[in-house]
């Protein structure tokens, strides 16, 4: 299926390169999610897709719509700010939850909690 917007050549090359770059970076991140060893290593690679991959594809979308409508269309900034604000929050919450679960099971791969109160006192734990 050959379908694409009718852009001038320079814009087509820029948009094509940015889209390919963003998709390749996202794929690299997901391959990292598939291959790395434990959860605390795996939590890092998907952020490739949510920062640089998303930025490349959103820039391509902005250039494409701006050239197509011959006026600046930057509504993609909404997605960019939203995802860049929320990704650290979700991943830090998830990492804290995983750390809590691993510690409560006494797993060997996480370091001990040095700030925890000595024994049996669960009140002060955040």
């Amino acid at each position, binding site marked *: *299926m*050959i*379908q*694409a*917007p*009718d*852009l*001038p*050549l320079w*814009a*087509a*090359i820029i*948009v*094509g*390169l940015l*889209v*390919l770059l*963003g*998709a*390749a970076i*996202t*794929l690299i*991140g*997901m*391959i990292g*999610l*598939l291959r790395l060893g434990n*959860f605390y290593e*795996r*939590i890092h690679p*998907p952020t490739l*897709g*949510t920062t640089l*991959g*998303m930025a490349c*594809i*959103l820039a*391509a*979308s902005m250039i*494409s*719509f701006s050239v*197509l409508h011959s006026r600046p269309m930057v*509504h*993609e900034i*909404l*997605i960019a700010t*939203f*995802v860049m604000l*929320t990704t650290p*929050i*979700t*991943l830090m*919450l*998830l990492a*804290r*939850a*995983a750390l*809590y*679960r691993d510690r409560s099971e006494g797993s060997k791969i996480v370091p001990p909690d040095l700030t925890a109160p000595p024994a049996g006192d669960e009140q002060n734990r955040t």
Partner: protein
Amino acid sequence: MSILILALAITMAQILLALAMGCAAFRILRGPRAQDRVLAMDGLYVAGMLLLLTYGIQTGRTLFFESALVIGLLGFASTVALAKFLMRGEVIE
């Protein structure tokens, strides 16, 4: 000429993003623990959002942009809710 270049690049990018979604789906199926599955679902949401954005570039319609925005919002809410569930055992205390 420029249409051909752009169509090839966008189709390649869609194939790459579909492979990325496949990797994330495989991790959801296989992931040894619940937090791996939640992380992979977050990645699946992001890759799906980017796939919708490439469809938006391809067709030149802003409808896909709005659905990508909705997917981003829902991915954030669902991942936060699931992380809270893993931490506490319930979502709303």
